[in-house]
C-alpha cells in the first residue's frame, strides 16, 4: 500500500538512511504527510506478528520526543529492544535505553534519572525457587525501587514458560497493587499463542534469553504502542468515527440502510468500540451523509442500537469533516489533541490532518485491522481503572441540559439554586492519589502550572507535613461529576506556594471556579498556617482559561512575572454570594 500524497517522497527509507538517536528521523513532514505516513506504517506496527526488518526500516518524519528507559535485567534484552524503536516512533517517541548489568539479585543501583523504569527478568533463572518465595522476593524489590525512584515502574510478569506462572502473576499483581505508579506488564497476554512451543526459546544459551524472538517483538509492540505512551501522556478522550466503510460496510447513501454490512468483523469492531466506551473513552460519529439517512440507519438496524446509545455526539451533513470534528470537540469540552479520528478515506484524513494538526488519525483500511489497531493504539490503554469515566458520560448529557436551562434563566442565583450544587473538599486523602495525578497530568485548559505530577510526586503532597493537597468534588441535581479539582500546595517560609491548580474541563462553564477554589485555597492556607498565597502560572498551549481566571481572581501580580498573590482575608470576599453548599468532608479546612 502506498498512501503518499502527490509530491511527497515515495520511498521514505532511502538506502543508507540508518537509525539515529536524533529527535527527528528525517526531514519534518507536513501534518497531512505525517498522517499519510502513519497510515502506511499501520501494516507494520499493528501487525499480528510484526516483522523485525519492516520495523527497522521505519523512519519517522514527525518530531519525536526523547524518552529515557532504564532497564533492570538479568538477561540479554538488547536483541529484543531493537524492535522497540519503530513502535515508539509511531507513538511519537525516540528511546534512550540505559541497561543494568546482568543481575539476578536485582541489587544494582537503579538509574534514577529515567522517564520509565522497566524491570524485566528472565524468570527461568530462578527455576529452583518456590513460586511463592519468588513473587514475594520480586515484590519486595519493587517496593524498594519504588522508595528510591520517582518515575513509573513497569515489571514484566511471567510468561507461560514458567511453571505456575498464573499464580505467580496474580500474587505479584496483588502485592504491587497500591504502590504509586508501579505497574505489572502482562507478558502472557501480550505474546501471541504459542505455535509448536515457539514461546520457549531452546537456544537461550546462545540468544541470552528464554524469550523467543517472536515473543520479544510482541512484548515491544505492547510496550512501545500502549504502555510507555500510557505512562507518559494523557489518555485520549474521544474517538471520532466515520460511518461509511468504517463503522458499517458499504456506503449508506448508495447501498441503503437495509444493505450496509454490520456483521462479522464489523460486529467485532463495534464490540471493541463499546469496550473502549466502557473504559471511559467517548465515542462520536462524523459522517458525510444526510442526517435523516443516518437516523434511519440506526432506527432500522437494531444491532447498531448499543453503538448509537454510546455515541455522545453525531455530526451528519455535507460540511467539511474538520469543521464537524471541531464542533464535536467543542461539545465534548476537549481539545482536538485529545481526539482519535478513524476514517477509511485517505483523502479525508489528509484534509482533516491539515486543518487539525494536533489530532490523531487511524486509517480504517478494513474492520479487522481497525479493531486490532484500536487494541494497541497509543493513548487508549487504561492502565488503572478510571473512576471518573462513567461520570464523564453523564456529565456531558447534563451539561447540555444545564446550558439550555441557563439560557432561559433570568435570575442567575435562582438558576444556581435550582441546580442544588454541592462542593465537597478533602485534604490529603490518600484514596484520591490516582485521580489527583490524573487531574494534574490530563487537564489542559484549567491548569496553572502544567506540572504533570505522577503518583509518586502526589504522594509527597499527601504525606509531607509542609505540603497539602485538596481534592474538590462536585455534584448537582443533574449529575455527580466526582473529583474534578485539585490544589497542590507547599509552605515556603511564611507563605504558601500553590504549585498547581487543576480543574477538569467537565467542571468548567458553570462559573463555579471561584466558589471551589476560594474554599480550597483558604483551607490550604489555614492548614499550612499562612496568610499569603503565591500562585505561579506557567503558560502552555491551551491553559489560557486558567490564566484569565487567575488574573481576575488574584489580589495582585508579583513583579513582572506570572506570579499572583492572594491573601486569606481577600479569599473570603471572593466567594460568590450564590446558594452553593460547600463543605469539608474530612475537616481539612
Amino acid at each position, binding site marked *: 500500500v502506498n498512501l503518499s500524497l502527490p509530491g511527497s517522497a515515495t520511498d521514505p527509507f532511502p*538506502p*543508507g538512511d*540508518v537509525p539515529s538517536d536524533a529527535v527527528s528521523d528525517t526531514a519534518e513532514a507536513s501534518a497531512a504527510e505525517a498522517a499519510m505516513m502513519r497510515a502506511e506504517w499501520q501494516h507494520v506496527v499493528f501487525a499480528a506478528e510484526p516483522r523485525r*526488518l519492516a520495523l*527497522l526500516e521505519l523512519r519517522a518524519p514527525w518530531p519525536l520526543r526523547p524518552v529515557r528507559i532504564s532497564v533492570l535485567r538479568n538477561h540479554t534484552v538488547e*536483541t529484543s529492544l531493537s524492535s522497540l524503536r519503530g513502535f515508539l516512533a509511531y507513538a511519537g517517541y525516540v528511546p534512550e535505553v540505559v541497561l543494568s548489568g546482568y543481575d539476578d539479585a536485582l541489587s544494582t543501583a537503579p538509574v534514577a534519572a529515567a522517564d520509565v523504569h522497566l524491570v524485566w527478568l528472565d524468570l527461568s533463572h530462578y527455576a529452583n525457587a518456590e513460586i511463592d518465595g519468588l513473587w514475594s522476593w520480586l515484590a519486595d524489590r519493587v517496593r524498594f525501587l519504588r522508595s528510591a525512584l520517582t518515575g513509573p515502574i513497569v515489571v514484566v510478569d511471567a510468561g507461560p514458560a514458567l511453571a505456575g506462572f498464573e499464580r505467580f502473576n496474580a500474587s505479584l499483581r496483588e502485592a504491587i497493587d497500591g504502590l504509586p505508579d508501579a505497574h505489572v506488564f502482562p507478558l502472557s497476554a501480550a505474546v501471541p499463542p504459542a505455535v509448536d512451543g515457539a514461546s520457549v526459546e531452546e*537456544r537461550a544459551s546462545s540468544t541470552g534469553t528464554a524469550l523467543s524472538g517472536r515473543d*520479544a517483538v510482541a512484548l515491544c509492540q505492547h510496550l512501545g504502542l500502549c504502555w510507555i505512551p500510557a505512562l507518559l501522556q494523557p489518555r485520549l478522550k474521544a474517538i471520532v468515527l466515520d460511518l461509511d466503510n468504517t463503522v458499517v460496510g458499504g456506503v449508506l447513501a448508495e447501498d441503503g440502510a437495509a444493505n450496509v454490512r454490520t456483521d462479522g468483523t464489523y460486529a467485532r469492531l463495534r464490540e471493541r468500540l463499546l469496550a473502549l466506551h466502557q473504559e471511559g473513552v467517548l465515542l462520536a460519529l462524523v459522517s458525510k451523509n444526510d442526517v435523516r439517512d443516518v437516523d434511519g440507519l440506526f432506527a432500522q438496524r437494531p444491532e447498531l442500537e448499543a453503538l448509537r446509545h454510546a455515541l455522545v455526539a453525531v455530526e451528519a451533513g455535507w460540511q467539511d469533516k474538520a469543521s464537524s470534528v471541531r464542533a464535536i470537540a467543542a461539545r465534548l469540552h476537549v481539545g482536538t489533541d485529545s481526539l482519535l479520528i478513524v476514517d477509511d478515506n485517505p483523502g479525508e484524513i489528509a484534509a482533516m490532518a491539515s486543518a487539525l494538526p494536533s489530532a490523531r488519525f487511524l486509517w480504517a483500511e478494513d474492520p479487522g485491522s481497525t479493531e486490532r489497531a484500536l487494541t494497541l493504539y497509543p493513548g487508549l490503554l487504561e492502565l488503572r481503572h478510571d473512576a471518573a469515566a462513567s461520570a464523564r458520560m453523564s456529565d456531558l448529557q447534563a451539561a447540555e441540559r444545564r446550558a439550555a436551562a441557563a439560557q432561559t434563566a433570568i435570575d442567575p442565583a435562582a438558576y444556581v439554586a435550582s441546580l442544588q450544587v454541592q462542593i465537597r473538599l478533602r485534604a490529603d486523602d490518600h484514596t484520591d492519589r490516582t485521580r489527583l495525578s490524573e487531574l494534574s497530568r490530563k487537564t489542559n485548559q484549567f491548569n496553572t502550572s502544567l506540572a504533570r505530577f505522577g503518583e509518586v510526586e502526589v504522594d509527597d503532597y499527601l504525606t509531607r507535613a509542609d505540603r497539602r493537597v485538596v481534592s474538590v468534588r462536585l455534584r448537582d441535581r443533574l449529575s455527580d461529576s466526582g473529583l474534578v479539582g485539585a490544589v497542590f500546595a507547599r509552605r515556603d517560609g511564611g507563605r504558601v506556594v500553590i504549585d498547581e491548580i487543576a480543574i477538569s474541563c467537565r467542571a468548567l462553564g458553570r462559573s463555579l471556579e471561584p466558589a471551589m477554589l476560594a474554599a480550597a485555597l483558604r483551607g490550604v492556607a489555614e492548614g499550612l498556617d499562612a496568610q499569603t498565597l503565591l500562585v505561579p502560572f506557567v503558560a502552555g498551549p491551551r491553559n489560557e482559561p486558567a490564566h484569565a481566571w487567575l488574573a481576575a481572581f488574584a489580589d495582585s501580580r508579583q513583579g513582572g512575572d506570572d506570579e499572583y498573590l492572594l491573601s486569606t482575608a481577600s479569599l473570603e470576599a471572593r466567594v460568590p454570594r450564590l446558594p452553593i453548599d460547600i463543605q469539608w468532608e474530612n475537616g481539612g479546612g
Partner: protein
Amino acid sequence: VADEHIRRRASKIVALVLGVDPAIASTLAVDSSPEWDSLRHIEIILAVEDEFGVKVPEGLFRSMSSVDAITAQVVTLRASQ
C-alpha cells in the same frame, strides 16, 4: 533469481541491524567487522528467521557470518523446513 532476492533482503537486514550502507553490507563478515558483534549477530539471525520464515538451529549460528553465508543457509533451510 530466488537466491538473488534472498541475498538482497539478507543484505538489507545486515545493513539495518549494523547501521551501515547496504552497498557495503555484503562485504562485511562477523570476524572482520567491529560493528558486527555477538549481540548484533543474534539480532541478524532473529530478523532472518522472521523475514524468511525459517528457524536457524543453534549449531548454525556461527556459520551465518556474512551475507553470502546467510543466503546459502536460508536456501538450505527453506528446502529442508
